[in-house]
């Protein structure tokens, strides 16, 4: 049990006014996530899972299934409507949604990392690639210029971006390189927990493979726990040990990835697996 890093219980995120019928009239069995009575959107409801050190958890589902909403609430991008999340760090337990804004910001900057599908969300395109990584290091109170330079350079080399391009603007980088800079930025503070939101979507296949390789290497080297959100079964098969399948804001199936892919129980999962090429 001491290996547990994150424990999520009853996590919900509902957009809109909410009525007592919201929960009972949405979900996969009603084939919608929008409440017919009040128009609220149940983006995610009653999400439960545990995450252990060095483990990769996959969340798969079609768009609008609530997989990104789940990760966004955990990264404090959005506030949850209900539920709790406990982060276990260095022998301490943190009730994540009970922390104040400054504590949440500090946890987000120092203990979590996020890689977005769109590099424009994760990177500041007004400053250099090195500056982007420096920002994370400065947030975690490292104020030594020489050390920031060395660490930023090392991180870029680790994610296979040439050190010589460190002082260039990421605008001039290819999509794959921008994604690598994002990963380097996310790893800057050596966080125990990393969120990956559709990291390979929109990249060409060879670049996708290289990025996935990099993610696996990082997991082996640093033992970083990750939550990988994707709609791509291949990514799940390659990365995730355990998987949650989401549809219309609910988790419809969860378990070992192999088990889900080889013996899907829910009709949606069966269709999903059958449709994969």
């Amino acid at each position, binding site marked *: 049990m001491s290996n547990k890093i994150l424990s999520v219980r009853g996590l919900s995120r509902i957009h809109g006014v909410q009525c007592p019928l919201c929960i009972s009239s949405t979900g996969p069995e009603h084939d919608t996530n929008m409440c017919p009575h009040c128009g609220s959107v149940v983006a995610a409801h009653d999400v439960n899972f545990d995450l252990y050190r060095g483990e990769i958890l996959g969340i798969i589902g079609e768009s609008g299934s609530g997989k990104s909403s789940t990760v966004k609430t955990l990264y404090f991008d959005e506030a949850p409507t209900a539920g709790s999340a406990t982060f276990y760090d260095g022998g301490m337990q943190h009730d994540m949604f009970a922390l104040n804004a400054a504590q949440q910001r500090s946890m987000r900057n120092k203990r979590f990392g996020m890689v977005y599908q769109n590099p424009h969300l994760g990177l500041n395109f007004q400053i250099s690639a090195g*500056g982007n990584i*420096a920002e994370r290091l*400065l*947030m975690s109170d490292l*104020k030594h210029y020489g050390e920031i330079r060395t660490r930023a350079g090392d991180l870029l080399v680790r994610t296979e971006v040439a050190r010589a391009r460190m002082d260039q603007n990421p605008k001039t980088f290819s999509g794959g390189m921008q994604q690598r800079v994002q990963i380097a930025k996310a790893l800057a503070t050596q966080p125990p927990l990393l969120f990956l939101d559709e990291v390979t979507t929109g990249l060409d296949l060879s670049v996708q493979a290289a990025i996935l390789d990099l993610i696996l290497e990082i997991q082996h080297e640093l033992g970083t726990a990750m939550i990988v959100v994707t709609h791509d079964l291949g990514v799940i098969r390659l990365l995730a040990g355990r998987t949650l399948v989401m549809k219309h804001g609910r988790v419809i199936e969860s378990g070992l990835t192999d088990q889900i892919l080889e013996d899907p129980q829910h009709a949606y999962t069966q269709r999903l697996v059958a449709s994969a090429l």
Partner: protein
Amino acid sequence: MNAHYELPLEDAGYSFGFLDEYAKKEVRRCILKAISIPGYQTPYASREMPMGRGFGTGGLQLTLSLIGADDTLKVIDQGSDDSVNAVNLRQFVQLTCPGVEVTEKTQKATLIQSRHRIPEKMLTEQQILVLQVPYPDALVVVEPSEARRKVMHGEADYSRLLVKLYEDVVRFDEITISHRYPTRLNGHYVIDPSPIPRWDVPRLHQSPALVLLGAGREKKIYAVPPYTVAEPLVFDDIAFRVEDFRDANGKRIACRCCGSTVSFLDELIDDAGNVTHQCSDSSYCEEQQETISARKQA
């Protein structure tokens, strides 16, 4: 202004210091709050003054709220008592605050209103320095939304300012901010110390005099209370440095009038293109000259 000008009779009912007593009371309250929270930008109801915003109305409202008949006022603009802005503000105070003495000597003043300089002479606990501020928020260069800047100040989140310094060092091998250097008070709030040159920033640190900063257009008052820790934002391994007044041979340039080699200098270029330097603080320069001539006579 005409020296013989008097307010028209029907307007002569202005209270002492132009502002009415309620306005002064409000400003004083905000000053107390600003002193209690060093560096916090206290909002206040900046009044319309009979001059354009941006001409020192923030500083003037502080001065008018603080000044009493037994005060001695000095007004400077970029170190000089004779600049247009300084002369106008001084005459306005003389007009509206009967009995107030004005002076050009730094040590004689109890209240000093200044634009863009801190006097060379060390201020004392008996003095108050009022600085005129155009842009009160140091974070404005990295975050356009004031609501978000307020949150950043509250959480002491200044990493993005430091990223700007980082980018400067990467591109130019040094920090390129010449004035309005972001300065941290008591390890929390970062202030924009008004457009004083870097030269003056170290003199905010542990200053015996109270320093008040007023932004009229932006409606903010903040303070550096006496003996407050004021540190310019820097990296651990790159020291803060002030303006370098050495010539090509590495020799410190002296003021052409008083010969001082320890003061902040203005660069003057005459019609022939010759470059000379002169103390920016005219009161300091004159005093040096008097000392020299007194020594010659003796």
